[in-house]
């Protein structure tokens, strides 16, 4: 069972991370690099009062633009993709997909949980965008993802109407509380670039999650129980 989870998560993470890296390299990363040219312009580099300034630690290692940066982003993608794939494969041991296509539904649920719901309150941001305190945003993000996951699970697997209503309520709670917002909204990059980045980020993440769901369901079903001793 553990071998099945590990194999499914490992190979799924690898394949989905490669797809993510490809989409990022051609679409998302160029927008980030473009935004950084505004950030690096010395005159523009002031953080409005009451917003979280992003720290510049001269000591910390930073990948150089070019192959180093692509490589370290690929590594980051790989770790994140294997992490998400482990969650999916773990859940499959409780609710095995009966068809490979069901993986698409799991992928959609993952997209809703980890991308769509958090970005309703904290939209994808280019470097140089003013934002509230990092720890507060991270807490809201994690809380939103957790409650979205629980809400969707109740909505889909709940056996009676009461559980389903409870699911919807749990889905809505983080958005009623509201995401932490900066005192002053400001952005160094032009709005058109930010708009383009939001679309690029959403579509890239949707493709990533659909691939993650589909590949994981396919691999999980391939490594059936009969292939190993439990």
């Amino acid at each position, binding site marked *: *069972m553990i071998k099945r*989870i590990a194999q499914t*998560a490992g190979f799924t993470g690898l394949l989905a991370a490669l797809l*993510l890296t490809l989409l*990022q390299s051609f679409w*998302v990363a160029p927008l*980030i690099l473009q935004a950084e040219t505004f950030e690096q312009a010395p005159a523009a580099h002031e953080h409005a009062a009451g917003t*979280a300034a992003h*720290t510049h630690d001269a*000591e*910390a*290692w*930073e*990948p150089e633009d070019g192959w180093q*940066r692509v490589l*370290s*982003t690929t*590594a*980051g*993608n790989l*770790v*994140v993709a*294997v*992490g*998400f*794939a*482990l*969650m999916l*494969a*773990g*859940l499959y*041991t*409780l*609710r*095995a*997909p*009966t068809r490979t296509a069901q993986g698409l539904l799991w992928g959609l649920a993952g997209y809703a949980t980890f*991308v769509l719901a*958090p970005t309703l309150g*904290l*939209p*994808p*941001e*280019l*470097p140089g965008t003013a*934002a509230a305190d*990092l720890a507060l945003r*991270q807490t809201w993000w*994690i809380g939103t993802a957790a409650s979205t*996951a629980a809400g969707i*699970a*109740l909505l889909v*697997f*709940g056996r009676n109407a009461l*559980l389903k209503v409870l699911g919807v309520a749990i889905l809505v709670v983080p958005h009623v509380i509201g995401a932490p917002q900066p005192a002053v909204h400001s952005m160094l990059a032009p709005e058109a670039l930010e708009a383009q980045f939001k679309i690029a*980020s959403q579509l*890239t*993440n949707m493709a990533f999650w659909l691939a993650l769901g589909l590949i994981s369901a396919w691999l999980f079903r391939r490594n059936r*129980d009969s292939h190993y001793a*439990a």
Partner: protein
Amino acid sequence: MSIISSTSPATSGTTTLSQRLTAAIGASILGACLVYFAGFSHIEAVHNAAHDTRHSAAFPCH
């Protein structure tokens, strides 16, 4: 989530429910740790390395 997922006709009965629950929870926690490390860690070097991953995935950054 685990409580309502307790019966699954699709999974064969070679393993007990508690074994499957343990595996599912363990895998989910391990997965969450990996995502947290790459996407949410406050270590500066890790942040810099996974910077583009974070922005692209719309994780809170900076």
